């Protein structure tokens, strides 16, 4: 730590970079409070204005906006609940129990992580069509509810935190296998459940490709799809659009501030192992 000059250079570069990374968010919130024309003033608006409610007013007349927000919440919560249940079940089984085809099945789980999203675009549309699930919300939360990533995360965590002795002791006491999962393993897996829950909710909240393929009516749209439909009209209501984008971003910012460490660790878990 003898040379302080390089250290200050590092502070400067990293700090300036961080400002550039955050600036778009700042402008998103500033623009959300500006009228459609003021956004493109010369010089551009750098501070907040009083048009937020007007912008939200435009949003709610052009879109069933609060309904769209509600659907996003509903789909996000459903997919989080189901993902936590299904992935913890499978992850626990892969980590703690012995059964036939276990290795092959787990290889299958890992294999599905490699399949690019566009491979599933056409056939999953056809499956939804065949099931009559087009324009329904379960088409958004059910198919991904046993995600390979989630199972992998749960397996890693269970393997390192659930003690085999505890499970054996419960077995001797006559606890059923499913009871052991539910009453002993699941409470021990709480931290990982929290991480997976956050990741699942966020990716559902942001999901664009799946709703694009299966949703049909604006009444049923989730937030990203609804916002995009506003973009496609000929004269874009930029103020309203920015207000909508800000509302779509705000919950994520809050979640991130509260839990960034946990989130980052979870999202890079596959890499670091």
């Amino acid at each position, binding site marked *: 730590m003898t040379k302080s000059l390089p250290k200050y250079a590092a502070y400067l570069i990293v700090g300036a970079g961080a400002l550039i990374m955050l600036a778009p968010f700042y402008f998103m919130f500033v623009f959300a409070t500006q009228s459609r024309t003021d956004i493109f003033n010369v010089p551009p608006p750098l501070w907040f204005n009083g048009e937020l409610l007007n912008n939200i007013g435009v949003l709610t007349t052009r879109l069933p906006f609060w309904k769209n927000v509600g659907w996003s919440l509903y789909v996000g919560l459903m997919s989080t609940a189901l993902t936590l249940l299904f992935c913890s079940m499978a992850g626990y089984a892969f980590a703690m129990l012995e059964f036939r085809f276990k290795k092959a099945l787990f290889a299958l789980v890992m294999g599905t992580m490699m399949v690019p999203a566009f491979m599933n675009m056409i056939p999953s549309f056809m499956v939804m069509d065949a099931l009559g699930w087009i324009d329904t919300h379960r088409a958004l939360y059910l198919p991904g509810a046993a995600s390979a990533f989630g199972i992998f995360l749960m397996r890693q965590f269970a393997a390192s935190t659930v003690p085999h002795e505890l499970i054996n002791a419960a077995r001797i006491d006559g606890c059923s296998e499913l009871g052991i999962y539910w009453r002993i393993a699941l409470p021990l897996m709480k931290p990982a459940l929290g991480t997976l829950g956050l990741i699942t909710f966020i990716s559902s909240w942001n999901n*664009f490709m799946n709703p694009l393929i299966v949703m049909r009516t604006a009444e049923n749209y989730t937030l990203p799809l609804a916002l995009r439909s506003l973009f496609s009209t000929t004269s874009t209501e930029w103020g309203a659009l920015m207000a909508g984008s800000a509302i779509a971003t705000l919950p994520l910012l809050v979640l991130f501030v509260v839990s960034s460490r946990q989130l*980052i660790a979870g999202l890079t878990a596959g890499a670091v192992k």
Partner: protein
Amino acid sequence: MSLRLPSHWAPYVLVSPFLILFAVFGLFPLLFSLWLAFQSWEPTSGIEAMKFVGLDNFVFALTDGWFWKALRNTLWLATASGVPQHLVALPLAVFLHQAFGRWRGLFSGAYFLPYITSTVAIAMLFGSLFSTDYGLVNQALHALFGTENINWMRSPQAIKPAVAIVVFWRYVGFNLVLYLAALQTIPHDLYQAAKLDGANAWQQFWRITLPGLKPMILFGVTLSIIGGMQLFEEPFILTNGKGGADQAAMTVAMYLYREAFDFSDFGGASALAWIMFGLIALLTWLTNQAFAERRAVA
């Protein structure tokens, strides 16, 4: 849980949701798409209208000028957004690792934030920032360099960099976090020993840091290649699904979407998906080979 079933069934009960969902929404669609790739079929004419056409769909895709254009666009965008991600993320991670102590989390969080934000919200915002006449980017460029307004969204030359900038901004923090995690696994003793031997900071970086990061570089680059070849949401939303002026920002994944859902050619689009899958596998393999060879020489 009062239900009692033979205990050797329990594992299968526990993995059954995965198995069922995977069979219905994972495996079956994948096999079906492989089968579709050899059929000529428009979904509106019913399942009976499906006709086996052998390799026709593949031949058509590979002789289709639009596919090659989309592939060139994709490679351009993947390179222009992917290479800078790593060239920026790696040194930044080293700076953060060496000089930031307890503020590290805060700063890496700032870089990571775009990764967890909605693509639609981001694309909307950048759509306004890149607006031609009075957009913030053009105003800033004019103020700083006196440049003429660039028609970001409507000129084929400018739309590609615009999309690449958005993609870069979105994913650079993810790579930063990967490198930061890898840096923490390099033993501190190595640096101490190097310092005793009189190695300067630059030599330490080339001889210790970079070799130590190699596995993570391979991992990060592989993820960038896989992600870059699948680019869909950012260009799709920024160009309203159409690919922009002269289709200059139409990626293969976007072309595939249009072929299926705008032109109802499900067979052709499925063939395209499998061609891309093969290409991604090939590129991933080549990357691994390149890294393995380097390791053997070193």
